[in-house]
C-alpha cells in the first residue's frame, strides 16, 4: 500500500486504540467513560505513532528490531516525494513544498485578519473567530519560520556543501519530515475544535481554560518540536563527521555555519517549549496545577519556560537567512565574504547570547523588579554580534561587482529589512520604553520586520538561488524581479505604519480598536492585500518554470560552493567520487583559486568474459 495511505490507516487505528485504552482505564477507575480532553491527547499520541509507523517506520526500521528484514526501498520518480524516502534531496524538497504551502495558507489567514482590521468595529468575524484566525496565522507562520530554511535548504544543501553523499542519519531525516503533516492536520483540527484565543504564545492560565482548540495547538507545537530536535541532531552530526577531505572549519561555507548554529539552538532549547506545552496539557486534562495559583501554581512560570525556547527560536528563524544572504552576497558580488571569521564569530555569539535574553518578553509580566535589569543588559549586548553579520555584508558589497538578479535582490532586502527590525528591537529592550510598547503594534511591526523581512526574504533568496540546482530548470528572471519588488514594497507599506500605530495606543491581538486609528489601519490592510497578491506571481513562476523552464546549467551563477560543481539536479549520491577541498569557497579575484575538485567517477570494472 502506498505509504501515505498506510500512514493514514494506521493513524486512524491508533486513534481508535488510544481512545479505547483511555475508556478502559477510566472505567477501571470508576470514572465516566468519556472525557474530551484526555481523549484527544490519547487519541493523538497513538494516532501519531500509527501514522509514523505506517508511513515508513514499520517497513524500513521497526521490522529490523524484530529480527525481520526491512522492506527494500524501490520507489522511483515523483512517487518518492510521497514516500519514506531517505535521500536528503527528496526530503529537502518535501519540506520545502509542504512548508511553503503552509506559509501561503497562513498568509491567507493574515488577509482575513487584515480584512477584519480594515475598519475599527466588528465586520466579518466574531471575537472567537478573529482570535482563532489570528492565533492560527501566528502559530503556522512561527512553525514555517522555524522549520523551512533548515528543513528544506539545510537538508538539501548541507550534505552537498560538505562533500557528503547524504546526511549522517538518512532514515532519521525522513522521520523528521513525516512529523510535519500531522502538524498541519492538528492546526486544521484546532480550527474545527472551536479555535483558540491565546495567540501563538499560548499563555496560561487562558491556554488551559479556553476552548479545546488550544490543546490542538499545544500538541502541534510539541510535534513540530520533535521534528526540529531530530533534524538538528542530524545536521550537527553530518557537519562534524562527514566533511570531505580538506574541508576544515575555516573553509566551511557561511551558510553551513549558519545552519550549524541554528541546529545547536534547536537541539538544546526546543525541549523547553515542549515542556511548556506538556505542562499546559496536564493542567487542562489531568488536574495538574503548574499554572493555577489557587492550587500553588504560578502562571508566570509558563512564560519563563516558553520564552526560554522561544527567544532562541527567533534566532533559529534568522540565522539561516543571514547565512543565505551572506552566501549570495559574496557569490553575486564576486568578492570574498568580507570578515568571514568575524561573521562566524558573530553568528556563534548570537547563538550563545540568545540563551540569556528571554525575559525581555516579560518586562511587564509582574517580574520581581530588579530582574528586568540583567535581561535588558544582555538583550542590548546581543546587538554586537548581530552587527558583525552586517559588517560582513557591507564589506563584501563594497567594491564588488554586483549582479542584481533575483536572489541577490532578496539577499539585499534581508539586510535592509533586518536593519529596521533589529534597531526597533533595541527600543523594546529598553525597560522604560517597553513599558509603553510591550504588547502593542510596535512589537508586531518589529517581529514582522525581523522574521518576515529578514527570515522570509532570506527563504525566498534561497528559493530563487537554488531553484536551478534543485529542479534542473531556470525560473523566469523577469517574473522573479516582479515578485521581488511587489513583495518588498507591499511588505514595507504594510509594516512600517505599524510602528506608529503601536506608539499611538493600538495594542496587539484586538479586532476592535480606537476609531482614530481607522485610516491608518485601512492603509495597512490595503498594503497587506497588495503584499499577499505578490505571491501569485511567485507561485506561477515556480510552477511554470518547474514544468517548462529552460534547462539549467550546473553553475548558472558562477558560484563556488560544492553544489555548483555537480549537475542540476544532482545525481543520487551527489558526487561521482569524494571531492577534495583545497580552500574556502570565497577565492574571488585570485586567478586559479579553487574551492574543491570533484573526483571523476571511478572507472567501471573491466568486463570479464
Amino acid at each position, binding site marked *: 500500500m502506498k505509504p501515505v495511505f498506510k500512514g493514514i490507516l494506521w493513524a486512524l487505528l491508533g486513534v481508535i486504540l488510544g481512545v479505547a485504552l483511555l475508556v478502559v482505564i477510566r472505567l477501571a477507575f470508576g470514572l465516566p467513560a468519556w472525557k474530551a480532553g484526555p481523549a484527544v491527547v490519547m487519541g493523538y499520541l497513538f494516532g501519531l505513532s500509527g501514522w509514523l509507523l505506517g508511513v515508513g517506520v514499520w517497513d524500513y526500521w521497526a521490522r529490523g528490531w524484530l529480527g525481520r528484514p526491512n522492506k527494500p526501498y524501490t520507489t522511483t520518480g515523483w512517487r518518492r516525494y510521497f514516500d519514506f524516502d531517505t535521500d536528503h534531496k527528496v526530503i529537502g524538497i518535501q519540506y520545502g513544498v509542504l512548508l511553503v504551502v503552509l506559509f501561503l495558507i497562513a498568509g491567507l489567514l493574515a488577509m482575513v485578519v487584515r480584512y477584519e482590521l480594515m475598519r475599527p468595529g466588528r465586520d466579518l468575524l*466574531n471575537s472567537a473567530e478573529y482570535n482563532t484566525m489570528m492565533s492560527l496565522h501566528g502559530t503556522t507562520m512561527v512553525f514555517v519560520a522555524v522549520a523551512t530554511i533548515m528543513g528544506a535548504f539545510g537538508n538539501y544543501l548541507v550534505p552537498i556543501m560538505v562533500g557528503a553523499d547524504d546526511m549522517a542519519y538518512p532514515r532519521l531525516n525522513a522521520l523528521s519530515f513525516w512529523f510535519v503533516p500531522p502538524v498541519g492536520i492538528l492546526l486544521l483540527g484546532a480550527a474545527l475544535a472551536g479555535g483558540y484565543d491565546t495567540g501563538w504564545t499560548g499563555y496560561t492560565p487562558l491556554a488551559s481554560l479556553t476552548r479545546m482548540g488550544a490543546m490542538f495547538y499545544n500538541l502541534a507545537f510539541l510535534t513540530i518540536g520533535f521534528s526540529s530536535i531530530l533534524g538538528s541532531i542530524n545536521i550537527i552530526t553530518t557537519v562534524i563527521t562527514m566533511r570531505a577531505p580538506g574541508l576544515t572549519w575555516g573553509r566551511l561555507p557561511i551558510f553551513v555555519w549558519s545552519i550549524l548554529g541554528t541546529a545547536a539552538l534547536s537541539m538544546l532549547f526546543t525541549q523547553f517549549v515542549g515542556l511548556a506545552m506538556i505542562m499546559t496539557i496536564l493542567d487542562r486534562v489531568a488536574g495538574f496545577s503548574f499554572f493555577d495559583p489557587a492550587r500553588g501554581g504560578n502562571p508566570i512560570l509558563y512564560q519563563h519556560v516558553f520564552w526560554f525556547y522561544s527567544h532562541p527560536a527567533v534566532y533559529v528563524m534568522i540565522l539561516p537567512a543571514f547565512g543565505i544572504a551572506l552566501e549570495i552576497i559574496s557569490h553575486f558580488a*564576486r568578492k570574498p565574504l568580507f570578515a568571514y571569521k*568575524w561573521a562566524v564569530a558573530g553568528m556563534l555569539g548570537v547563538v550563545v547570547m540568545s540563551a540569556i535574553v528571554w525575559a525581555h518578553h516579560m518586562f511587564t509580566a509582574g517580574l520581581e523588579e530588579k530582574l528586568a535589569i540583567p535581561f535588558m543588559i544582555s538583550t542590548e549586548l546581543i546587538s*554586537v554580534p548581530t*552587527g558583525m553579520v*552586517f559588517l560582513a555584508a557591507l564589506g563584501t558589497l563594497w567594491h564588488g561587482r554586483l549582479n542584481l538578479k533575483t536572489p541577490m535582490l532578496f539577499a539585499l532586502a534581508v539586510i535592509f529589512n533586518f536593519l529596521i527590525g533589529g*534597531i526597533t528591537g533595541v527600543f523594546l529592550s529598553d525597560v522604560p520604553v517597553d513599558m509603553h510598547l510591550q*504588547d502593542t503594534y510596535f512589537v508586531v511591526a518589529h517581529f514582522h520586520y525581523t522574521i518576515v523581512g529578514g527570515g522570509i526574504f532570506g527563504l525566498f533568496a534561497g528559493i530563487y538561488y537554488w531553484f536551478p540546482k534543485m529542479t534542473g530548470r531556470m525560473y523566469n528572471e523577469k517574473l522573479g524581479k516582479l515578485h521581488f519588488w511587489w513583495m518588498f514594497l507591499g511588505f514595507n507599506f504594510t509594516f512600517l505604519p505599524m510602528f506608529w500605530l503601536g*506608539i499611538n495606543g493600538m495594542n496587539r491581538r484586538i479586532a476592535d480598536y480606537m476609531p482614530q486609528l481607522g485610516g491608518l489601519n485601512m492603509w495597512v490592510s490595503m498594503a497587506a492585500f497588495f503584499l499577499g497578491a505578490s505571491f501569485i506571481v511567485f507561485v506561477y513562476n515556480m510552477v511554470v518554470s518547474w514544468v517548462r523552464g529552460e534547462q539549467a546549467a550546473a553553475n548558472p551563477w558562477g558560484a563556488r560552493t560544492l553544489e555548483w560543481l555537480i549537475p542540476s539536479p544532482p545525481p543520487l549520491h551527489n558526487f561521482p567520487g569524494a571531492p577534495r577541498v583545497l580552500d574556502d569557497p570565497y577565492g574571488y579575484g585570485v586567478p586559479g583559486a579553487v574551492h574543491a575538485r570533484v573526483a571523476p567517477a571511478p572507472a567501471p570494472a573491466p568486463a570479464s568474459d
Partner: protein
Amino acid sequence: MNRDGVIVTILWVAMTAIGEWLAVTARIMPLGAAEQAAVIDEAFTLLLVLAVPVATLVLAFFFYSILRFRAKDGDSEDGPPVRGNNALALVWVLGSLILAVYIIFNPGLKGIRELEASQGADLVIQIEGVQWHWNVRYPDYDLSYDRALQIALPVDTRVRFDITSQDVLHSVWIPAFRMKMDAVPGRVTTLYVTPNKVGDFSMDPNLRVQCAELCGTGHPLMRMDVRVLEQDEFQEWIQEAREQAMGGGMEGMDMSGEMGGEMSGEGMSGQGADDSAKESK
C-alpha cells in the same frame, strides 16, 4: 581615503543630519499625561537620536554600493580579493559595544531609576481584572464598584495601582501615561503613575485603561476611561461615585455597566475544563 569613501561619508553625514532633524522635531508620541510619560518619551527620543547615525551608516554604504558597484550586463569578472580588515572589524565591534553599553546606562538604568524615583502611594487604587471587565476599589475612600467604565485620578498625585486578576492574565495599560503592568491571578502587581495633565477620554482616547494581555474573546473591549481631575473635582467625583455605588444606581455618572453586548456566557468554565464554551455572536 578614496573617492568612493569620501562620497559615502558625505552621504552618511547628510542622511544623519536629516534623520536627526526629523527625530527631534517630529511629533511621534501621542499625548503624555503623566510624569512617567515624560521619562519614557525622553528615553525613546534618545534611542532614536542614537539609532539614526547607525542606520544611516549602514544605509549609506548599502545604497551607494548597490548603485555604484553594479556589474554591467555580461561582465563576469571578479571583484578585488579583499578578505577583510581586522582593524576595521575591531573598530566596528568596539564601536557597537560602546554604544550598547552606553544605552544600558542611559536611557536604560537612568530611565529605570527615574521611574523608581517617581513612585509613591499618596493614593492607592486596587484594580482587579476579570474576563472581561475591571473591578475598582479606592480603599482610602471606601469606594468600590465592579464592571468599571471609568476611573478618576487627581492631578499631580502619586498614585499606586495594586493590580490583580480573578481568572486569566490581563494587563493594565494607560497609553497616555505610557505605563503598563500585567494583572496576574494569585498575586498583586504594582504600577505607579503620577498624572500631571487634566483631561479625560473624550479629550484624548489615550486616556484610557486598555487591557493589554490577550485574555479571551472580550479582550478588545476591556477598557475604561481615565479622568484626570483637579483635586477639588476629584473629591466631588469620589462623593458622587460613593453615592452611585451605595445607591446601586448606574445612571448619571456612568460608573459601571456592561461593555459591549456580546460577552455573555463566553469563557472559561472552571479549572481543568475542556469542553468548548459556547460562542456568542
